[in-house]
């Protein structure tokens, strides 16, 4: 009886979201504990009652989201303040213009005045004479002189440096062209001799190769032809021997036949002779 389910576990159980092991424990507890069972039953009853509340039908109104970004820029909230500041500035400028306000900062003093600007010529007329010991023409001359001097020295130094540059360029050009000429000459002569040598060696090599090839092939042909001739002679000899044998055997057989024939004729002749002899003897006897 030590186990007592927490409110959280009860809720999880009520909505079927309690893990398996905890659920078994809780169900066991409910079996043994009728008051807890009753409480759960009451909660279930309440849930059933709450389920009587039905959803309200509602039709979703169209929702436009695209409106916001296309909002005119002067409708933006900060535009109001900006426009306010601009308008007040404009008013200030207008008032200043109408009232002829004049503000100037000159010679370390700030002047604010309305209406026409007072001429401050008096001060400038005081300061001018002290400086005017030199006339403008003199100043102009001085300036011109110094400018001319400056130009002359500049021109001189420029000329000098240009000359130096030209000289050095010429020198290096001459040097480089000489080197390049040499190099080219070397390269051309060397290459001609080499090419000649190379071609000659190639030719001799080729000639050698062709020669040896022809020699080799001629020898082989000779051998082959010789062999062929020998073979043919042998073959002819063989053929003649064979023919001779055939002729000989045929002659032999002819001779044999002849002999047999002669013997037969001899026999026949003898027999005939004997017959004739007997007959004649008989006839004579008769």
């Amino acid at each position: 009886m030590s186990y007592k389910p927490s409110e959280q576990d009860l809720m999880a159980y009520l909505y079927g979201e309690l893990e398996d092991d905890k659920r078994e424990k809780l169900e066991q507890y409910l079996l043994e504990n009728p008051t807890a069972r009753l409480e759960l039953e009451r909660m279930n009853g309440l849930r059933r009652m709450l389920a009587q509340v039905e959803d309200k039908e509602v039709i979703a109104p169209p929702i436009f989201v695209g409106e916001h970004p296309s909002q005119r820029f002067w409708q933006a909230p900060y535009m109001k303040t900006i426009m306010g500041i601009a308008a007040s500035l404009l008013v200030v400028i207008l008032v200043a213009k109408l009232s002829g306000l004049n503000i100037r900062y000159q010679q370390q003093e700030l002047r604010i005045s309305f209406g026409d600007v007072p001429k401050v010529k008096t001060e400038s007329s005081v300061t001018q004479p002290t400086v005017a010991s030199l006339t403008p023409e003199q100043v102009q001359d001085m300036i011109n002189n110094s400018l001319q001097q400056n130009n002359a020295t500049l021109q001189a130094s420029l000329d000098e440096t240009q000359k130096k540059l030209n000289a050095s360029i010429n020198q290096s050009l001459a040097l480089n062209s000489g080197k390049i000429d040499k190099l080219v000459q070397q390269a051309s002569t060397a290459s001609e001799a080499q090419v000649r040598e190379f071609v000659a060696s190639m030719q001799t090599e080729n000639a050698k190769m062709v020669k040896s090839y022809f020699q080799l092939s001629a020898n082989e042909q000779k051998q082959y032809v010789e062999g062929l001739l020998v073979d043919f002679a042998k073959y002819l000899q063989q053929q003649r021997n064979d023919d001779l044998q055939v002729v000989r055997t045929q002659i032999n057989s002819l001779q044999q036949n002849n002999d047999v024939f002669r013997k037969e004729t001899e026999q026949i002749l003898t027999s005939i002779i004997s017959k004739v002899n007997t007959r004649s003897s008989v006839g004579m006897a008769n």
Partner: protein
Amino acid sequence: MTETLLDIAMMHSDTLLARAKEGDQAAQGKLVQLWYKRIYNFGYKFFMDHDMAMEVSQKTFISMCRSLPSLQDNARFKSWLYKIAVNYCREEARKRKGNRSLSFDVVWNREAEDSPAWETSSQRFDNPERQLQQAELSDVLQQALHELNVEQREVVIMKEYEGLKFREIAEVLNISENTVKSRMYYGLDGLRKILERKNINKDTIGYEL
């Protein structure tokens, strides 16, 4: 019944969500159609007021469409959406408290104490008597719900009517799951006490539950 149908629709809403995120207006519109009823009903139960519910829903969906691209986990869409809705509900509730000297709860409850609510019964005519009874009960229950404090009310509505898991509610309200369960427990307990005070139980409401 509608709950399960809706759930099925939600299953297929993944591609819809993806398209809506990319700024597809049609997909966003569909998403709104799909969820409007839920958010409206949440708002309605929260405020017991049609206009407020409409306002909160519209604000919620405008905000949803705007900040959809920032939603990282599509699986969390539901709790994300309710989070927006809850925030707008709280904001509206705060505004209203500032604007009016009398809390809506107090006014409503005083009325509810002695007179039944006659309005807003849905117009279906298959058994008018029962329909009326149900409408009355529904109203009484919603009033009781409205008497709970905001924290418990939110949790009870989301759990009982919106079918969110405790984990999801915790995500919506940015509190621990155990806190959600506690609030639910005390919310149900409070509801029972309120209904007992109103003398509403199985016997008095006159039909089987």
